[in-house]
């Protein structure tokens, strides 16, 4: 059980190291100052939490993820993350089965509600997560399954 997790943790460290040296191609391209390359390259939730220096998240009824039960097209899937809780630092949108698990990350200020909607790409049917990163370091999530159907004609 632990082997896989350790390995992932190790590869995350390597990625972070390469990142620090500017050796990952995507990182080399990173232009925006604070863009967290390691987080956006994380292949799974464990890797992502490590890249963010966060603890494993716990499910919470106070966090809501919105999305359709079925997406007619994986190229555009409307999703949203919100919470009723105060003291939120960031809201994250994750697609479990995408090549990179993190889709978007929103920094919350006192001037905005912790409620963000966007549209993501999904390569296949997957769980979608909304994660609230709290000021006290807690990570709270909600998840739902979104099915992606085949388009017509297949060609």
């Amino acid at each position: 059980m632990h082997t896989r997790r350790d390995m992932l943790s190790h590869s995350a460290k390597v990625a972070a190291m390469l990142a620090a040296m500017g050796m990952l191609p995507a990182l080399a391209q990173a232009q925006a100052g604070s863009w967290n390359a390691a987080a956006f390259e994380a292949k799974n939730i464990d890797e992502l939490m490590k890249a963010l220096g966060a603890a494993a998240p716990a499910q919470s009824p106070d966090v809501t993820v919105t999305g359709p039960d079925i997406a007619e097209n994986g190229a555009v899937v409307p999703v949203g993350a919100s919470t009723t809780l105060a003291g939120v630092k960031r809201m994250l949108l994750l697609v479990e089965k995408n090549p990179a698990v993190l889709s978007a990350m929103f920094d919350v200020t006192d001037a905005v509600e912790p409620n963000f909607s966007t549209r993501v790409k999904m390569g296949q049917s997957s769980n979608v997560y909304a994660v609230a990163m709290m000021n006290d370091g807690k990570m709270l999530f909600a998840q739902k399954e979104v099915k992606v159907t085949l388009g017509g004609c297949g060609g």
Partner: protein
Amino acid sequence: MRKTSIGAAAGLAVVVGLAGCAALAPSPDYDAMLAEMMKTSFRGEGIATVDRLQQDASNAECSKSVGKPLPQARAQAIEQANLATVKMPSDGKFIGDWKEGEKLAQNGRGMTWTDKSSATASNGGNCYNCHQLSKSEISFGTIGPSLYNYGKIRGVADPADPAAKPIVDYTWSKLYNAKAYNACSGMPRFGHAGMLDETQLKHLMALLLDPKSPVNQ
């Protein structure tokens, strides 16, 4: 039939032309204008060459009826001509692997100008585009009838049983040349047009008739 039928289509055009003469006011010869318009509007692209615009007698007659049913005698003549093209499997075996059949049924690719090859191996069966088949695939079309429980409803417990022979023969012929049973059927003539080979047709037969196939669960 595809190649020899162009003459038949021309003959048909003559008949239609004569019928037109009986009308009081001569209406414009739209059929001739249509032929000219089709010729000048399209060009070949990749494997989709302009000779694809040529119609055989069945397609010409079903097109000219612009959606109205054909007179019964004409429909029967077309059906007979198409039935005559059906080739039964060379080794007498009809049933392949339903798992391969399911893959073909899911696959809607083939024969467009963006496809590289027109070999049968590049073509899917396109089945789910128009038909429901196995219960687990919720993304199915409704242009054709549902084929869920196709074999079961028809009482096929063993496709090799002589009792199942009429259904087996009919199903093969329908897949091979759908116009054999419905002159202006919307379904492609997979065997007749050379879109699927014998082995692929057998896999689709298994999908429809094998009691173990998800279609019959």
